[in-house]
């Protein structure tokens, strides 16, 4: 029993000690967390440790001796009758009354043990810690924490300004104490606005950028230089701000004039415009070419996976059915939806489709070619992607012309163009049959002929090696006028010439037919898009072809307007021009190799040379080295580094020019060359740079330079009298 008295006191002491330490910890913890949230963990740790030490010194937990506990018990428990000290004494050493008192206190203590809390305030300290935590989170979230002008930004985030010219050392240099870059991503990306103090920008094209800079002391003027264009920053309440839209990659920096007119420039920052990638389409479970017998089940089923970086707006299948062959081929396009619904805005879509050829009214010998088209959410102009074209054909029981000759889809394309002569015959037939035909049938046929006329025109456009955009076109909207004339045409005219929706046949023709016509020539072309040379040598041919296509435009226009009579003269003219071209053209000769001098046809055929003149030409085809100054700068820097030269005005000029060359190169990857560009900018200034900067710039410049192209060189060699004698002697004895 006597041990248990002392033990109990010790137990109380230990418990109180533990609570005291816990209290100190909680007190120190609160400010520690606050500092951590606002200033980083090192400062927070220091705050915590120093605060805890101070509290330890204040509370002095080592003072909790058993005697002290007893006196505390005496003061807290009136029932102890100031005799809890007896608990510590040995029972033997006590008198009888004392022994009785000891037992009494002990039994009392047993009852009070649970309610003894000491002078501790665990709840208070805990609450305080929570309060500090909440305060920290609040300040951090709403960025209310601002320690004023003395606040140090992290070095990477501070805008470093350097004076352009040397300034007196005693001068107080203004510096940017606050900076903010706000990036407003385009709405369709559904990304939140970003506020940052990091000045290097990497954002999607079309993002809005806004800068805000505050200086520690007033300055006269602040400007931002984006890709060499200087824009003044607007002052509002001591802060300077400017905003722009990110359209392409590049660089920018800030410059300011202090109140005395000294200029300062910041280091360069990169502007990296990320392009919104067009959707990616993958078709699974489908062969490029598939054929069916007329009696089997004709179902083409496939799954498509469409992905996009910001979201897909819509996806559908463009299917074209061709009936007949040769010059009597007819087309019908349909825009088909997938079986699974397209949920706009998704980044990935898994879609499936079952195409039943029978439901498309396909007969034996008919072909279906289709592709998947997907559009993303980009604004104002969405990205559109087409998949490869796939083919399905129902074998004709009579003439099965299709053989799988190669893997090229284009090899399988039928010759579906009507010739101009055929078109004329058909038009004349249409005019003849008009009285017997109904209005709707007449209009439909006329429109079909118009479409065929267009196909022919596009074919010649492709043949010329040109985009159809180059072909002269009559006033826009003429076809709309035509298509709007009859409701019955809607099925066939189906947005063909709409600017908003690229015509599927045109696309498929461009994708698939163009290689067929262009490929054999392409390998021999020196410069396939060289309108200059083609204009010079084959001026008459080119203009004739353009003229013929012009006629085709008009012919098509009238066919679409259901006026085949009006169309005929244009068709005749077009035919005549085409015939002339066929007779005179030597397109291949020009395209393949040697450029013959322009010779008049009659002269050439006569075999006489009197009128054939000598031909002279002069050209400067040397391409300027885009790295001239970078190469020079390398030599200059090396001279400076090895101590054989110093930076002078001439070398500064070279560095500046090299900087421009590098900037042009760096537009592709702004971040990559930023340091080198920055170094060159510093070197172009008046202030001496350390050797490390020179070495870093040299290194960067060497990386930019491409590998040299093999080029004949002029070697040096001394040829003296002795060499001459030796050669002569050798020649003498050479048999």
């Amino acid at each position, binding site marked *: 029993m006597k041990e248990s008295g002392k033990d109990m006191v010790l137990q109380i002491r230990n418990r109180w000690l533990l609570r005291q330490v816990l209290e100190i910890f909680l007190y120190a913890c609160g400010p520690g967390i606050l500092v951590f949230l606002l200033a980083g963990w090192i400062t927070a740790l220091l705050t915590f440790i120093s605060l805890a030490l101070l509290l330890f010194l204040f509370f002095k937990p080592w003072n909790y001796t058993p005697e002290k506990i007893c006196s505390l018990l005496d003061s807290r428990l009136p029932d102890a009758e100031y005799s809890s000290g007896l608990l510590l004494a040995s029972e033997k050493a006590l008198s009888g009354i004392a022994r009785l008192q000891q037992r009494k206190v002990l039994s009392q203590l047993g009852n009070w043990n649970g309610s003894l809390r000491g002078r501790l305030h665990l709840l208070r300290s805990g609450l305080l810690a929570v309060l500090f935590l909440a305060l920290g989170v609040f300040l951090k979230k709403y960025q209310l924490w601002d320690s004023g002008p003395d606040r140090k930004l992290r070095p990477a985030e501070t805008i470093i300004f350097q004076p352009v010219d040397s300034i007196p050392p005693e001068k107080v240099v203004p510096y940017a104490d606050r900076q903010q870059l706000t990036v407003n991503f385009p709405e369709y990306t559904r990304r939140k606005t970003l506020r940052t103090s990091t000045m290097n920008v990497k954002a999607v094209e079309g993002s809005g950028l806004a800068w805000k800079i505050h200086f520690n002391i007033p300055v006269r003027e602040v400007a931002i230089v984006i890709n060499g264009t200087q824009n003044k920053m607007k002052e509002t309440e001591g802060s300077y701000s400017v905003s722009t839209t990110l359209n392409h990659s590049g660089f920018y920096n800030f410059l300011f004039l202090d109140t005395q007119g000294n200029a300062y420039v910041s280091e360069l920052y990169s502007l990296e415009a990320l392009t919104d990638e067009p959707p990616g389409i993958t078709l699974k479970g489908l062969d490029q070419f598939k054929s069916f017998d007329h009696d089997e089940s004709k179902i083409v089923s496939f799954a498509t996976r469409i992905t996009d970086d910001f979201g897909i707006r819509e996806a559908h299948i463009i299917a074209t059915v061709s009936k007949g062959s040769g010059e009597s081929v007819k087309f019908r396009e349909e825009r088909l939806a997938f079986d699974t619904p397209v949920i706009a805005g998704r980044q990935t879509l898994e879609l499936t489709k079952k195409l039943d050829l029978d439901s498309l009214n396909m007969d034996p010998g008919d072909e279906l070619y289709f592709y998947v088209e997907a559009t993303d959410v980009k604004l104002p102009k969405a990205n559109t992607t087409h998949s490869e074209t796939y083919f399905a054909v129902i074998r004709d029981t009579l003439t099965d012309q299709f053989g799988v000759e190669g893997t090229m889809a284009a090899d399988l394309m039928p010759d579906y163009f009507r010739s101009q002569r055929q078109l004329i015959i058909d038009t004349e037939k249409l005019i003849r049959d008009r009285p017997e035909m109904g209005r709707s049938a007449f209009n439909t046929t006329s429109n079909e002929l118009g479409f065929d006329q267009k196909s022919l025109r596009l074919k010649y456009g492709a043949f010329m090696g040109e985009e159809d955009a180059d072909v002269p076109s009559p006033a826009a909207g003429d076809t709309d006028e035509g298509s709007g004339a009859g409701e019955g045409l809607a099925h066939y005219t189906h947005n063909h010439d709409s600017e908003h929706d690229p015509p599927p046949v045109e696309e498929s023709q461009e994708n698939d037919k163009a290689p067929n016509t262009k490929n054999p020539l392409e390998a021999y072309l020196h410069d396939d898009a060289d309108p200059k040379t083609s204009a010079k040598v084959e001026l008459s041919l080119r203009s004739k072809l353009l003229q013929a296509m012009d006629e085709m435009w008009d012919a098509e226009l009238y066919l679409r307007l259901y006026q085949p009579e009006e169309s005929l003269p244009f068709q005749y003219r077009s035919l005549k021009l085409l015939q002339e071209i066929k007779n005179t053209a030597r397109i291949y000769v020009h395209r393949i190799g040697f450029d013959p001098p322009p010779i008049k046809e009659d002269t050439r055929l006569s075999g006489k*040379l009197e009128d054939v003149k*000598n*031909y002279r030409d002069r050209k400067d085809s040397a391409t300027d080295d885009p790295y001239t100054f970078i*190469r020079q700068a390398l*030599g200059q820097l090396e001279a400076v580094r090895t101590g054989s030269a110093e930076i002078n005005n001439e070398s500064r000029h070279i560095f500046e020019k090299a900087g421009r060359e590098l900037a042009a190169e760096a537009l592709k990857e702004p971040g990559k060359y930023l340091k080198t560009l920055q170094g060159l900018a510093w070197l172009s200034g008046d202030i001496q740079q350390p050797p490390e900067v020179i070495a870093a710039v*040299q290194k960067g410049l060497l990386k930019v330079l491409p590998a040299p192209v093999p080029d004949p*060189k002029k070697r*040096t060699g*001394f040829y003296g009298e002795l060499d001459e004698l030796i050669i002569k002697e050798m020649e003498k004895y050479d048999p």
Partner: protein
Amino acid sequence: MIHNFISEHQLLNWPLLTGALIIWAIFLWKEWRQFPQPRFFIKGCVALLVVASLVMILIRPALKSKSGHAAILTEGFRKQQLDSLRKSHRNLKILAYHPNRPLPDSLRGLNALYVLGEGVQTFDLWQLEKFPAVYLPGSVQRGIVKLRYPREPIQGDLLRINGIFNHPQKNHRVVLEGPGGITLDSFDLDIGEEQAFKLSTELKASGNFLFAISEKDSSGKVITKEELPVHIRPRTKLKVWIMNGVPNFETRHLKNYLAESGHQVLVRNQVSRNRFKTEFLNMGEDASYAFTAENLDQFDLLIIDAAAYRKLSSQFMRVLEKAIGEGGLGVFIQSDNQFLKSPGNLGDFLITEDKSVSVVLDAWPDSKVEKWPYRLQVDIGLQSQQATGEGILTGYKRIGQGRLGLTVFQNTYRLLLDGHRQQYRKIWADILSAVSRRDDPIAYWSTPDKLIYKDQPFRFELRTGVEKPIVILNDDYPVAMASKVDVPYVWEGTSFPVREGWNMMGISGDSTAIYNFYVLDTTQWRSLRMVQTMEENTRAFSEDLRTPGAQISSRPISPIWFFLLFLSGMTFLWLEPKIYSS
């Protein structure tokens, strides 16, 4: 003893002795009055001593060294060698070597002098010429001991560095660093005695550049770093005349390639009888294309097809021969089947038929180059430019100052069409660079000293047509030049550069005749320099068979002793009459 006593001036002995005897005789005659007193004999003897001392001072007698050996210790000597020398020669003198300081006189009486270790510097070798010296090479320091690279390549060239590393270590690397410390190439070392290494890089800019070759361990720590100075010359453009008897695709692409690279090209194609198509690419239309030697001298290269070549009249052939032989023109013939069958007299190419019509070059195993079914035969004077194991495909011959080139390739433009652009360019760049006219500089500098160090002799040679050239170093002071007796346009000079880094040497009055060289700090390339010094020492000491003891060695007696003898004799002769009279 007397046989050990020799003089350096043997020839003077007889006249001197006669003179001395006369002087002594005069003295005796002068003192004859005292004869036969003992004074006379004493003074006579002293006078003899005095006269003898004078003679000795003049004839500088020397003592034959009985025996003696010394060893000069230079860096890298082997301790075992020294120990065994010590064993065989008890009184072996050990001397430390200090470059560029005279060897002590005490070495003169030695029987043999041993040079241990790296050897004395080449500029100190003359000091040992008189000694019966033996060279015992020491051990070579680890590091690069052989190095070969072009000192003055042209921009766009591939800088190839070949070397040998002594005692390489596993997991170490030799790294080629470019300006600014950029790593350009590296080579992994393996353990062994010696390892050959190759490094290369493309030269992208012209000027004076300081590359570096460093040895790094597996953690990337630099063990050694040696400077590698390279003066990169700028590219010069060629002026090319292409002459075709018939238009062909090869020329069409070749002219485009040359013109795009910035070369001046004159293309003259015959399109019909007496009708020509003339194109001036990157050059003025005023250039004359008359086939005269003067006009051809304006061009660096004439590319002529076999059809046009065959049409050349004998007069034009003479013009062409003159332009090549005397003018230094480079001519390249675009051959055809007929030409290769009988290539004509100019150049006397030996051509043999083979059956293959295409060839795969080693550097591009993926593509075939079309060729005529012929190949060039190995012949005196034929420089092979492109060849396979089966024979030479492209080559040229020197004709006088110029060159005549020929290839069996045909339709190389197909490489371009097949997308092998780089290969097409490389083939033609090699052919045309080899054949075209050489730039004849006003001054052609060369040096036998591959490594040039501060305050050490730098020997150089200058070939120039300039009469009595005045060579100025760093626009500062002239260097004395000496013309070679037998080749008067070759001048030699030696300088002691004082400035580390890039130095410049030029001919006074001509700003184009510049030579750039880099002066290294003596700590650079220690191992390489050591091997070079060892080779020089081995060569120098083996030149004349200077075996130990083959030469008589002697130790001169210091004339001070004779002078003291003379002085004391004279003092006695001066004092003696005074003592006697008193």
